[in-house]
């Protein structure tokens, strides 16, 4: 398993899979544990899980792609979260998301190929008064507008 970013974690993963060998019904649980361990679910991790649990890769990926919680790419250096809680939503967070998706060329839940940014949608951050709210690596930015959000990203290179 050379050149695997998850290197030393591979053994740990083997243990998780071994505990669920030939138990297709445990698929979601195993995916969850694997993602907690490695941070994301690259193809070869999904292949190992498919083999171990006795399911096909298409079934594994079917589940991975169904739940927004699972991701197949490593988290970017800068993790951008856009709040789509009710308050932020009505104050225009969908437009901000759309603008950033266009700017970065990725969809929410995905990361840029250069590994720099990842983009996700979150529920209410508890700062509704400042909505729409966006965070970059946990630092919050309030009263966002689409172009302002792009400007914020300029600070993170």
């Amino acid at each position, binding site marked *: 398993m050379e050149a695997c970013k998850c290197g030393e974690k591979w053994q740990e993963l083997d243990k998780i899979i071994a505990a669920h060998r030939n138990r297709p019904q445990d698929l979601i649980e195993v995916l969850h544990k694997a993602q907690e361990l490695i941070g994301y679910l690259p193809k070869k991790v999904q292949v190992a899980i498919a083999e171990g649990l006795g399911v096909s890769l298409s079934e594994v990926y*079917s589940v991975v792609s169904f*739940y927004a919680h699972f991701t*197949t790419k490593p988290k970017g250096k800068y993790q951008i979260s856009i709040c789509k809680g009710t308050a932020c939503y009505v104050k225009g967070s969908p437009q901000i998301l759309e603008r950033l998706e266009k700017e970065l060329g990725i969809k929410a839940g995905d990361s840029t190929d250069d590994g720099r940014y990842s983009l996700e949608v979150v529920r209410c951050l508890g700062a509704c008064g400042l909505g729409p709210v966006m965070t970059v690596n946990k630092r919050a930015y309030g009263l966002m507008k689409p172009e302002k959000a792009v400007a914020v990203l300029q600070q993170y290179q």
Partner: protein
Amino acid sequence: MSTVTLTIDNVQVEVEAGTTILKAAEKAGIHIPTLCYLEGINEIGACRVCVVEVEGAKTLMASCVAPVAQGMVVRTNTPRVRAARRLNVELLLSNHPMECPTCIRNLNCELQSLAQSLGIRQVRFEGRKVDYPKDTSTPALVRDPQKCILCRRCVAVCEKVQGVKAIAPLERGFDTVIAPAFQEPLYEVACVECGQCTLVCPVGALYEKDYTNEVWAALADPDKFVVVQTAPATRVSIGQEFGLPPGSINTGQMVAALRRLGFDRVFDTDFAADLTIMEEGSEFIQRLTKGGVLPLLTSCSPGWIKFIEHFYPELLPNLSTCKSPQQMFGAVAKTFYAQKAGIDPAKMVVVSIMPCTAKKFECQRPEMRDSGYQDVDYVLTTRELARMIKEAGIDFTALPEEQYDDPLGESTGAAVIFGATGGVMEAALRTAYELITGKELPSLDFYEVRGLKGIKEAVVNIDGTQVRVAVAHSLGHARQLLERVKAGEQYHFIEIMCCPGGCIGGGGQPIPTNTEIRAQRIAGIYNADKNMPVRKSHENPSIQALYREFLGHPLSEKSHHLLHTHYTPRGKY
């Protein structure tokens, strides 16, 4: 058996407990429309086209999954039911590309005919169109997600019948798409290109890659000498495309149609099937008597070959080295026949008419160029041939019966049964028995290996040796049988066909192809066998001449070079 009595549209009907309302209605003579439902394979209640009203129930019920109950009162044709069905189909149409006139499934599309039968004259909604691109990566199949209605019939067939699981529903909600993992192109994954998914797709979202333009061009080119071969199973299926009952034998009309289309020679894959029996039968005898890897696995079915290469590479030594009849034909046509007829093989184009999509993949395999050229140039499915015949304005049913050309058109009853599950085994036994014992077979019919049972077994006494044979059709059953072999069960000879029912149920056959139609085509195949004057491959005079004039004897060096091959382990991912 406990039974339940219920009333459907005022008709009383008694059925077994646990029956669905849909089946009960069928028994009462009432037709309920369905779309996602495929009996025994896809019963997921997803499309809700089959809804009915049940007295006392608040919501409409999907009759394809709802079980009957004692005293139930069902109505299948109320204003509420009709409105709901229309609405559901309208929603499917709301983001559907309305390309019926140019669509491959025009006039044979379940969505189209539902819209008609439900009386939908306008679609009140306009939905966002799907923007996933077409997948044309394989030589055999096209996937068009824009026309997909997400019924999941293809997924169910690929998983439950074929045990391949190449495709699955991915993403969620509006973005849902049926595709291989990671939305990789089909060519990159362990799909065997059997085309069973194209048989069950109700719309034009999964279909065969069309090579009719290439063939029209070859036919129009005066420099090309175009020969055609027709697979055993096509003669009992082509008639269906022209309104004839499934299983009717139309060999002579098909030959006549091919001549009118302009093929220079009309030959028969059945000839090559007889040749296959000579080679494979001899290989079996050699492995049996001289000690070779057993059980011998047949190798006529390219979907099965791709399957074993992906999923059971450890059993490749068991696989016969014989090419499929289609490929043997191509290799012989571009060498022996080209020489004999004085034709430059570089100018020869070999076209196959096949019940199969996987053969399109097979003919492009790099191993299949032993004549010095690509042995078979183009593969057309039964469906594509029917389209060419229609395009040419030929009235198929009015055609006289014509004969194949010599010498690659002569064949036996043993060859035609290649089209049905069990046929290759039966043909091989007819020849192997006589070659080993030197005696004539008391009866040519091996009934135990015929029919639609998933796995069939028989024991045949050949000169004191109890030869154990087994036959499986569909890859799901093949998997079960191979697991038995791996667990140590002893067989001598195993026939495996990729598609349910064998080639008569192939992925390139007329739509619909279902269990009932498969049985009718099988009956046609065995009738064709019975009508043949010669029913054993080794008694085919043209095959005997081929060995005399060109190949020498079965398993000769020349045979090995032209008629045998090797395989490529492929891995699952």
